[in-house]
């Protein structure tokens, strides 16, 4: 069912959207954090989510790889339902192993890096390809070294995360996510925990990644990055999408009053 549904839409749009949300709701206890999110991320685009803290943008991002379960609505990644299987009009929860299988294709970068502290930078990048994909160690090591070079950290391969600066840790985290060859990358405020002078290096890596054609969903407070690199931008507040459009239009000429007041505070 779900496949047919998305196929029909994809015919209309030309391609299957990488992410499609239809009326996504999410509550924590009695607090409703997402109150009906509708949006579409096209393949190859850089999709920026901005908004005040508590607006639900990080929660929405975490729903995309099923770190959070949604309570209502539908969420599709590459045409497939997230966390469920639809059969005969009924929804069946996916097993943990099936969820894990789908997460392989979705890279995630966290605000607080979450590198594995007991492994070196190289081992961090090697871990998932070896453990999850069953790649041979030698091959994985070679690939990991290439990825570390790509994020400008070839000389830090043997260092433990505690021996790296925040910016370096975040770049290792990006390399770690890329090691699984994801078709979609999620960034959860990747520069918010960094000292200001380290933000640039991380954004440079993300810019390169965007130029290579990666589909990226980025929760960010970096309006400069959103304007220069972003293809679409959504402003969220209070669990709903308030305004969306091309970053240049939304950032320079916001239509909605709430967008205007938010941007006046951060720009």
């Amino acid at each position, binding site marked *: 069912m779900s496949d047919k549904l998305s196929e029909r839409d994809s015919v209309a749009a030309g391609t299957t959207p990488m992410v499609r949300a239809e009326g996504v709701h999410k509550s924590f206890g009695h607090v409703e954090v997402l109150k009906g999110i509708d949006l579409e991320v096209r393949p190859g685009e850089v999709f920026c989510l901005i908004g005040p803290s508590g607006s639900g943008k990080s929660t929405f991002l975490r729903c995309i790889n099923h770190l959070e379960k949604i309570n209502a609505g539908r969420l599709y990644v590459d045409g497939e339902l997230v966390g469920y299987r639809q059969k005969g009009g009924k929804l069946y929860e996916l097993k943990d192993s099936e969820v894990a299988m789908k997460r392989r294709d979705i890279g995630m970068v966290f605000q607080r890096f979450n590198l594995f502290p007991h492994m070196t930078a190289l081992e961090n990048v090697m871990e*998932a390809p070896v453990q999850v994909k069953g790649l041979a160690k030698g091959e994985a090591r070679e690939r990991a070294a290439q990825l570390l070079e790509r994020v400008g950290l070839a000389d830090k391969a043997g260092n433990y995360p505690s021996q790296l600066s925040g910016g370096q840790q975040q770049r290792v985290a990006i390399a770690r996510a890329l090691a699984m060859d994801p078709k979609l990358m999620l960034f959860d405020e990747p520069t918010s925990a960094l000292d200001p002078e380290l933000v640039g290096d991380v954004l440079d890596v993300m810019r390169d990644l965007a130029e290579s054609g990666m589909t990226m969903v980025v929760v960010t407070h970096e309006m400069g990055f959103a304007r220069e690199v972003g293809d679409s931008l959504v402003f969220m507040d209070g669990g709903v999408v308030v305004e969306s459009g091309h970053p240049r239009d939304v950032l320079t000429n916001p239509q909605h009053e709430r967008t205007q007041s938010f941007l006046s505070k951060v720009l």
Partner: protein
Amino acid sequence: MTDTEKTAGDQGTPPARPEAIKAIPVRHYGRYVSAVVAIAILVAIINAFSQGKINWHAVPEYFFDHRIMTGVSKTLLLTVLSMLIGIVGGVLLAVMRLSKNPVTSSIAWFYIWFFRGTPVLVQLFLWFNLGLVFEYINLMPFYKDYWSNFMTPLLTALLGLGLNEAAYMAEICRAGLLAVDEGQTEAAQALGMSHGRTLRRVVIPQAMRVIVPPTGNEVINMLKTTSLVAAVQYPELFRYAQDIGQNSGAPVEMYFLAAAWYLIMTSVLSVGQYYIERYYARGSSRSLPPTPWQKVRAHLTTFSSRKVMA
């Protein structure tokens, strides 16, 4: 570091280094006084013991007696095997206790409640006398025998000590698992790792830092607790020492001998613990603390380099 040095060099003459401080250090008279008092008390105690009606010659005479050596090896064997049962069981129980499955977590809770809530000596006797409940042991195709034949003193001791230890280790492991940041689990899951693999590769290695120190404590505790199994007819160090004491007419002397052996073994174990802790500290601090041997070498090299400079 190098940057600041460079800029200092670029600016031309470095600022003149002020004279090193030469001050008279604070005198800690309290330390001298307390040292003298402590030494005096120690001398008094040693004197009292040497004057007592104890035949000290019996201690070195039997120190390496073959029965004592057998006892020492059996005590070590019991400690190692019981701790193995305890650690494996503890990890299993901790994972069960933290599982989302309500059945497994209840079983783990009940196990810990029972084995932690009854004295280990009582448990040893219960295992020993379980033949009253189960007359036979019958593992259909493999093994069938009377319970009393099956439940040897060694097995009784191992089950009694090991299963009791598992309950304590479970709580230690649970504390360790809970101490690992949730972001670690999320990161592993986001990479597509399964629940089991996340535990094995990411969570448990980090939990070890929290688990190892109290486990070292448990090992030392276990080594001493093995002296209880004399009650279920398994001979180990303490039992052999008692036997020798009764036959040779020097019972108290043999207690001192046993105490000395326990001290030696616990000291060796403490050293082992230091190195295990050091291994699991990798990555958590920027540089590993030096081993005692490295410290000694460092002191020697600085000493020799000082001489060279002079």
